[in-house]
């Protein structure tokens, strides 16, 4: 109970800071309009994106039984970007829902490719899998850059690659609310996702339909990744940092910890956005850049602190 009170107060404080911060002041004239059109959407977008990324991270970690992996380390966003590029080239007029769907399907295919690779990676060294994912993502990323370069679409790629919230306004972020629905769905199957983390044999021995549950989890991850990527861009490290910090502190019983993981991701991304708005005020640094600096430090700490049973 006290934990939730602390979390609530922290969240409220961050939200107030985010709502009050920006180039224009809330108290000259059109403050209410500014809130509704820009500040509230921006704050909500950061919270939803952060929660979605963190949840996607923990599901992937349970599926591959490796906590040093997250969607951004499995080629998933790169595959989604490749799909988005293809849409932009072939059917530029497609509605956002269509783009989102194509991105999600490509994300799922990209993740399936990673899982096929993961099966051949010996599990003894937990460091190996993220490296394989990094290379795999690098190859997909290079393909994306090549296509974008030849088609003169590099500026699109730039928008997707660097996640930030300065362009978020009313009417341009509402898709992110789907994350809230997915989070609730994920909470319903929290036990199943935890059991996935016990490994295929033990999960099946407990009567879990392993293949089906894993597929369901991966579809949710692909959808979360695509939603965030299409609306606000790519944010590496969130899916790694939030679940790992919660896991170190409270363990892996997702029935109890899923809300905390979502909260951690939300707070992380919103804080990064606020810092990004403060550092070079009245200009901005992308939230993804702030997270990359902070996330890289935490990642190094995780590698250093738990090489044996990461």
């Amino acid at each position, binding site marked *: 109970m006290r934990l939730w009170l602390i979390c609530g107060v922290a969240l409220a404080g961050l939200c107030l800071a985010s709502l009050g911060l920006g180039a224009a002041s809330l108290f000259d004239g059109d403050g209410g309009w500014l809130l509704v059109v820009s500040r509230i959407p921006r704050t909500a977008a950061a919270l939803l994106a952060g929660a979605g990324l963190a949840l996607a991270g923990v599901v992937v970690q349970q599926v591959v039984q490796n906590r040093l992996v997250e969607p951004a380390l499995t080629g998933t966003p790169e595959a989604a970007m490749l799909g988005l590029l293809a849409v932009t080239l072939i059917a530029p007029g497609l509605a956002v829902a269509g783009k989102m769907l194509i991105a999600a399907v490509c994300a799922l295919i990209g993740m399936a490719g990673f899982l096929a690779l993961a099966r051949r990676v010996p599990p003894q060294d937990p460091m190996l899998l993220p490296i394989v994912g990094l290379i795999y993502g690098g190859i997909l990323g290079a393909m994306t850059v090549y296509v974008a370069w030849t088609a003169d679409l590099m500026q699109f790629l730039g928008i997707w690659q660097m996640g930030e919230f300065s362009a978020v306004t009313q009417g341009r972020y509402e898709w992110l609310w789907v994350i809230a629905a997915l989070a609730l769905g994920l909470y319903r199957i929290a036990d199943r996702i*935890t059991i996935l983390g016990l490994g295929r*044999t*033990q999960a099946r*021995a*407990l*009567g*879990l339909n392993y293949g089906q549950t894993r597929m369901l989890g991966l579809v949710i991850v692909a959808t979360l990744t695509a939603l965030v990527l299409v609306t606000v861009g790519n944010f590496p490290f969130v899916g790694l940092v939030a679940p790992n910090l919660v896991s170190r502190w409270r*363990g892996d019983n997702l029935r109890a910890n899923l809300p905390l993981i979502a909260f951690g991701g939300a707070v992380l991304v919103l804080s990064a956005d606020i810092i990004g708005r403060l550092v070079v005020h009245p200009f901005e640094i992308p939230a993804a850049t702030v997270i990359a600096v902070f996330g890289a430090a935490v990642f190094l700490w995780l590698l250093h602190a738990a090489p044996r*049973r990461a």
Partner: protein
Amino acid sequence: MIETAHLDLHIGDTQILNDISLRIEPGVITGLIGPNGAGKSTLLHCLAGLTPVTGGTVRIDGQDPFSADDTARARMVALLQQSPAIVSRLRVHELVAFGRWPHHQGRPGPDDARHVDEALEAFDLTALADRPLETLSGGQRQRAFVAMTYAQDTPWILLDEPLNALDPRHARNLMARLDGLARTRGRSIVIVVHDINAAARWADRIVAMKDSRVLAQGPTQQVLTPATLLDCFDTPFDTIPHKGRTLVVAQ
């Protein structure tokens, strides 16, 4: 009773199980012995309905574990794999509680809590219930996994080398508890063991495997003979009667 008829499993040209016909008696401990690579673990997974076979049938108390739905199967037979990976940071009571999952599918009731408490007590884990698994010793961890399998409350319990990495005291305590489960609760236990003397001491019946076949099956005293052991392990053994049981010593 678990009965198998002409079980066959091959992957490509590699024969893993070859014409396995078994009768495993209920209410006792059956030891599965044999050299490395004989197919013991695979057989155990097939008995639990987890590894599909390429031929033959398995019947657990008359039911086919391969055609049973996942939940029904997990209420009939519990399997603990060899050295289960613990990547998950779970507390002991959380892990043991997952043994109840086939019974409640995510909505535990008071009955489930009672089973978990009983499993924790049966394996001497009550004091460790709140400890994270990764802070436990190998023996304590192994006991936690066996307790999870026990909490699954199935008539059949299949354990793949649960004595691995246990010191003599923990190995003995674990076997004594399993023995108690068979004697007083009528549970049927099948256990893969490398230590032939552990099988000799605790198993009521033995199944000896070699080169993907069943070499011998029957009451422990009848299977653990120098001739069968030589055949099974290609190593000469002496058998010594000891306190009404058989002691096995490599020559």
